[in-house]
């Protein structure tokens, strides 16, 4: 069974079906179709987890010629890094569909179709082993995201959408140029795995690394190319923010692991210091920026940038702990940021404000919601027992092996992270009931309870027992580290 193809094309097929069936006066048909599609999409990706062998090889491989003239193949396969990300994405799509239910009332069919189609593109991107195929999915996914932000977003949505699009396009086109270069260097191969074996000179490696850096750093996003993210997050509808934070940010980290490190190991080693400094700036400086935000979504957006700093830090300290921590942090941040954005969405749907000031004493009216919000806030600040702790702890541990000061600076996030998250929680949830609107709040309904509970279980499960996840990715990480430590510069 072509499982990977199914994970890609099931959501896309259902997305098209939703478009075809959509009727703006009666959106329920589109909603149920989308729900069925997203759940099916999740179900077909479950065998990836069940049947995964703990080796570093590519699994569930599918290979068919696509454009023979340029030797482009429809080549799919997953390893221990990409497989969990595909599952994460399929899951998030289901949550987004559930989360939109009573919220989006305008052009429901198009909204859901955009998410489903994008979900398929993202799965395709994580599964692609051919660079052109990767690039096609990588770019195609910008189109639905552009529309999601621009059509269903907040007041400044158009600016945010265009900024998001152009920023990411600039990066990815430079990456395309390096793809073409590598194609000629390998005498006509777009196979990513062939590129891993390609010998390259030092200058070439550094230029390739920098061009790819432009692409992936924008996605992560790393300081100083992060400025699109707060705009996009704030203006996007809740579902858009969830996918942006939980999935598309991971594309950057994934790109570093799939392309930059194995294709240009020497340049990665050489420029590691540079990458570490940028990561630490993100962790510390952006953490401080998050502290002063008055808008909840913006605060979470900055918190995302800061947490993604851990991912890049973990990747570029080149040891097993750091890399494992970085990848677990990607997954965990997927859960936590999605959960926090959904929590903000729950509040926003009731009060229509994202300002922290507009709230206060919400816990008095919404005790169940408050319990979840506090749990996710704790996870975001890295409380032991939640998934947030595992990733950050491992990265700090790995950093300590390299340099005390890296670890020291990275660990400050445990202070700042706790500070900005808990301060927000305190102002929003506790204290006296702030105003009339808060006084009228109703606690979460069944639908909201469903997605919050799913995420809470996952956050705790990964936090208490991360071993299965670690087992899946360990062989791949070992292989990657072995590869990175081998010089490619010829004698």
């Amino acid at each position: 069974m072509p499982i990977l193809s199914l994970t890609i094309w099931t959501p896309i097929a259902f997305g098209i079906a939703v478009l075809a069936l959509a009727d703006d006066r009666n959106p329920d048909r589109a909603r149920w179709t989308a729900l069925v599609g997203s759940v099916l999409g999740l179900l077909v990706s479950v065998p990836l987890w069940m049947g995964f062998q703990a080796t570093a090889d590519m699994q569930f491989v599918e290979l068919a010629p696509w454009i023979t003239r340029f030797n482009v193949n429809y080549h799919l396969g997953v390893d221990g890094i990409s497989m969990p990300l595909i599952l994460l994405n399929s899951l998030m799509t289901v949550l987004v569909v559930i989360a939109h239910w009573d919220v989006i009332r305008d052009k429901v069919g198009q909204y859901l179709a955009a998410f489903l189609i994008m979900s398929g593109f993202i799965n395709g991107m994580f599964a692609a082993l051919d660079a052109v195929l990767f690039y096609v999915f990588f770019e195609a996914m910008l189109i639905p995201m552009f529309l999601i932000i621009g059509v269903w977003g907040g007041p400044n949505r158009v600016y945010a959408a265009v900024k998001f699009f152009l920023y990411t396009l600039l990066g990815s086109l430079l990456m395309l140029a390096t793809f073409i270069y590598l194609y000629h260097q390998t005498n006509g191969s777009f196979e990513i795995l062939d590129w891993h074996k390609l010998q390259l000179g030092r200058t070439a490696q550094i230029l390739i690394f920098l061009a790819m850096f432009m692409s992936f750093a924008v996605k992560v996003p790393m300081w100083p190319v992060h400025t699109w993210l707060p705009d996009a997050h704030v203006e996007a509808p809740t579902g858009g923010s969830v996918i942006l934070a939980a999935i598309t940010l991971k594309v950057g980290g994934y790109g570093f692991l799939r392309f930059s490190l194995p294709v240009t190991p020497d340049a990665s080693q050489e420029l590691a210091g540079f990458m570490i400094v940028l990561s630490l700036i993100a962790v510390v400086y952006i953490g401080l920026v998050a502290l002063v935000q008055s808008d909840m979504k913006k605060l979470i957006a900055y918190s995302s940038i800061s947490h993604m700093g851990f991912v890049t830090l973990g990747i570029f300290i080149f040891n097993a702990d750091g890399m494992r921590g970085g990848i677990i942090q990607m997954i965990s941040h997927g859960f936590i940021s999605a959960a926090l954005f959904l929590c903000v969405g729950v509040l926003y749907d009731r009060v229509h404000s994202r300002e922290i000031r507009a709230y206060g004493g919400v816990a008095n009216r919404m005790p169940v919601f408050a319990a979840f919000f506090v749990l996710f806030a704790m996870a975001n600040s890295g409380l032991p027992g939640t998934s947030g702790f595992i990733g950050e702890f491992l990265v700090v541990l790995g950093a300590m092996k390299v340099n005390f000061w890296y670890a020291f600076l990275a660990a400050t996030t445990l202070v700042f992270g706790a500070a900005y998250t808990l301060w927000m929680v305190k102002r929003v949830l506790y204290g006296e009931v702030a105003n009339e609107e808060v006084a009228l709040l109703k606690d979460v309904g069944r639908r909201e309870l469903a997605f919050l509970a799913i995420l809470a279980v996952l956050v705790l499960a990964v936090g208490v027992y991360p071993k299965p996840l670690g087992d899946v990715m360990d062989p791949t990480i070992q292989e990657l580290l072995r590869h990175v430590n081998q010089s490619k510069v010829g004698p």
Partner: protein
Amino acid sequence: MNTATFSWATLAPAIPEIALLVLVSTLLIVDLFLDEEEGAVTYWFAVASLLGCAALCAMTIGVPTRVTFQGMFVSDLLSQMLKVATLVSVAATLVYGRTYLQVRGLLRGEFLSLSLFATLGMMVMISAHHFLTLYLGLELMTLSIYALVALQRDSVRATEAAMKYFVLGALASGLLLYGLSMLYGATGSLELTRVAYSLEHGHAHMRLAVFGLVFVVAGIAFKLGAVPFHMWIPDVYHGASTPATLFIGAAPKLAAFAFIMRLLANGLQGMTADWQMMLVILAVASIGLGNVVAIAQSNLKRMLAYSTISHMGFLVLGILSGTDNGYSSALFYVVAYVLMTLASFGMILLLSRAGFEAEEIDDFKGLNQKSKWYAFMMLIVMFSLAGIPPAVGFFAKLAVLQAVLEAGYTWLVVYAVLLSVIGAFYYLRIVKVMYMDDPAGEITIDPRADMRWVLSVNALAILILGIAPAPLMDLCARAITASM
């Protein structure tokens, strides 16, 4: 073989041209005897003639290369393929333009017969194997198009555009002819293979040949609309009636590509190093100016005019690599480009109605609320023009860029890529107004069935060719190999 012999064998390669000539002459005569109300007859006659000739050309695909009329005319896979594309795209132009022309009283025999004569010119250009045939085809095409633009007599803008086009176009033809005459002087022949032969074996007067080449390239650049010979494009695109603009923007690009192939790649391949440098300048200037100036436009036709300039820059990029790989990439690019142009102007024509030209970008505001389907079609076209996968525009760019990199111009690739980001902005703006703005005025969309189908197929073809570009790419590669 000095005596002209007219036999079936010598005429066979030119059957589609002969058929079209007969048909358009018939159309001219028939039209005289028809009333205004019976305009539909001539319209369908014209469309049927085009499609019939396309079928004739399609039937010859697979027939090996034949050169006839003492080396003046060639029929090879390249010409067969380009002719089919040309004829189909002219037919699509007529379908898109029908309602527009009808409500403005322009759908008369003149428009149709001029279109067909211009098409005939293109076909002759495509099959030219001799400087004279090349020039004759070019002139038949451009003279018909001048008249096509001027046809809207009561429009000041159209008349001005026609004047500008004619004066500059005549100048460019003069330059071209001057250059060709020098090449004749330098090589002693007007036939492409003989010119190539004498250049390759050092029989030619090289300094004179290079001097002639400069004029030839300038003439080509003018016809393509490459910077610095682009001045006519925005004004003519803007001023001409939209169907005429569509006519100029689509099919002649195919002919121009054939023109460049025959002249530079076949005839003057011995001077590749010389023209390569000139084309680099043209490409860099076109991509730069086209993309940057397009941002400032609020008129969609003008914006598309500047976008054309930048796309022609990309086309030139493919050619300047000077390899078969580059030529076939450029061929793929030009076919993709024609598809996109047809669809984008088709959309303008779709939204236009009596007394209203939907040519401002703002006229597309809120299209998604009015018609999801056509908004989606336009979305595909715009992302394709911007080179975003999975539309065909992406593969066209990819093919060209890899050929340029293969030729060793890494810096050109990076330059083209960076300018594409700027280019993406103005295509994105169209998508933005369609999806993210509320309608400004009343949008009425009530196309005829033929237009609805052709436009939908046209736009979907852009998407489908993006998902499965391999067959067309292979065909392009084979066509180029056959022509070399």
